[in-house]
């Protein structure tokens, strides 16, 4: 596994243990971290989001874009404010798109150079659309 980027810092790993969706739903207490595969619906845990501190969303391949929508739904519809971590086939050239959809932690795929990651997360200086931290461009365009 490659490095973990969290809070704009490069780490080797952290202590968080993510349960699968099934394990999470089966558990009696309220665990704080769960991971979802692409295609698993975030709606399944919508009622428990207040108690969850970290959700990992898996990219089975870098070309599978479902997790972008899952992250956007978590942030926009459910106002989820905890960690959303990208796991799986996470590559440098997609970090900006992930960040703009609401991811804030990235478990890089093997061989991805962590030194370049922070620059990639930042990406373009302007964007047309609403993103996680800004309104659409037209709302502040002259």
């Amino acid at each position, binding site marked *: 596994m490659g490095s973990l980027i969290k809070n704009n810092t490069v780490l080797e790993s952290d202590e968080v243990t993510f349960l699968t969706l099934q394990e999470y739903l089966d558990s009696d207490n309220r665990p704080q971290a769960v991971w979802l595969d692409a295609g698993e619906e975030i709606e399944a845990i919508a009622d428990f989001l207040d108690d969850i501190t970290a959700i990992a969303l898996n990219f089975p391949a870098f070309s599978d*874009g479902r997790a*972008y929508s899952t992250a*956007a739904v978590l942030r926009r519809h459910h106002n989820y404010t905890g960690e959303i971590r990208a796991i799986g086939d996470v590559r440098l050239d997609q970090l900006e798109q992930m960040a703009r959809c609401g991811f804030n932690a990235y478990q890089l795929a093997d061989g991805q150079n962590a030194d370049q990651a922070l620059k990639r997360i930042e990406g373009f200086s*302007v964007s047309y*659309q609403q993103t996680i931290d800004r*309104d659409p*461009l037209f709302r502040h365009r002259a």
Partner: protein
Amino acid sequence: MYVYDEYDQKMVDERVEQYRDQTDRFLAGTLSAEEFQHLRLRNGLYIQRLAPMLRIAVPYGMLSSTQLRKLAHITRHYDRGYAHFTTRQNVQLNWPKLEEVPDLLAELATVEMHAIQTSGNCIRNVTSDQYAGVARDEIEDSRPWAELIRQWSTFHPEYNWLPRKFKIAVTGAEGDRAAVQVHDIGVRVLRENGETRFEVLAGGGLGRTPIIGPVIKQSLEPKHLLTYLEAILRVYNRYGRRDNKYKARIKILVKAMTPEVFAQKVEEEWVHLKDGPETLTQAEIDRVRKHFTAPAYEKLEDHVPAVDDLLADNSGFGNWVKQNVKAHRQPGYVIVNLAMKQTGIAPGDVTDEQLEIIADLADEFSFGEVRVTHEQNVTLADVPKKSLHDLWTKLVEAELASPNLGLLTDIICCPGGDYCSLANAKSIPVAEAIQRQFEDLDYLHDLGELDINISGCMNACGHHHVGNIGILGVDKKGEEFYQVSIGGSGYEDASLAKILGPSFAQDDVPGVVQKLVDVHLEHRQGEERFIDTYRRLGIDPYKEAVYATWEV
């Protein structure tokens, strides 16, 4: 037309540098070929049979003379002196060098052009009506809406990795010149009680499973355009199939769910987005509309004896006017079409010199702008009628005055097996053979409107499903054959063509077309169009004529 402000320019400039970095990393071996493939496709660069192919975006077909001259320069310096107009109003280069593409893009950026999202599984270049703003049957100019969609879809972070490519078309006229019924999303701009409203279609398309798109939303208010599109895209991104690329387009999802259930799902998603930050402001709508106001027309007489008196005869000029020139909403002005369908030249191909001549003619006769059409032709939208003869004379000199717009020889054709690595069969030589079979202009004019569409494979870039006569290249045990279909239309009376029967060898195709045309001429009533005769007769007489004497 739309002019960039500092934000638009910044994004295009930053994309050039980002792409340059991606190319450098690929050439240095630090970016894998697999990953670079996806990244370069999102910037229009394919690796084809003979060389890379670069698809340059022409948003809803609008080009300025400055941009045309830059394209001419680019074809000369980075390519082999010609370019190709595509069926999606874009421009393609056939021979750029992979390592020179970043420099080429930097040059394009200086004239507000780019190759962003012209390929890959993302939202592609938005297309529209080539007569927008000037057509007599227009309800409202579609271009401001197309531009707003272009901006919203450019680098949208959520929809860059969709199950499959995604195409949006917009029309604002009675006649549908944008083929909105065969797009992933079609938007019709309408008027209801004097107010602008949209009708939204979803799940149309060609390719392996051609489907006429159903209407999923009526009476959408303008301010909700982007949030509603966002809802469709999110439903598609989440639930579209990813296990089989031939079943991954939105049309398969809409069909599987049924249009009613799909529309319901979109409504449920839209509830969260409606009236949110992406809701368009009147200030933004006004800002974009200001870029599409009418040019400074002169007050001119609509009747021009020097032109009108020539229409009756069959002179070269008269034929060209009758076929290629269309009515304009402004008195004394006309719409002029250059049919890029000279026999012996691949449909849609244009040389560097012709690009410069078109630029000069646009400056002299049409306020410095042209439009690329999805029929692979070029439109000068605002020509004073009194200048028609002068313009025609110059077009004849430049070999740009083919008087065959909309006729049988105005063939829509993909690059096919000569260039494209996806193709099963060649398409350009087939187009040429048909054009040679039908060289008699009087015969063609008598025959009237007839669309022939040729695709070299199932991906249907030549839109063969919506050709009055559609021709599809197929592979039979390593040999190239052609399946012929009949009865398609890509316009407001959209219909999908039906397959005639077993396929033919390349040499037989012109003869088959001739037989189909013979049936038409024998049975047509008055000035009836080919498609209307077919709709009246059904497929059988055509089938019989073609196969009765055919040894299959």
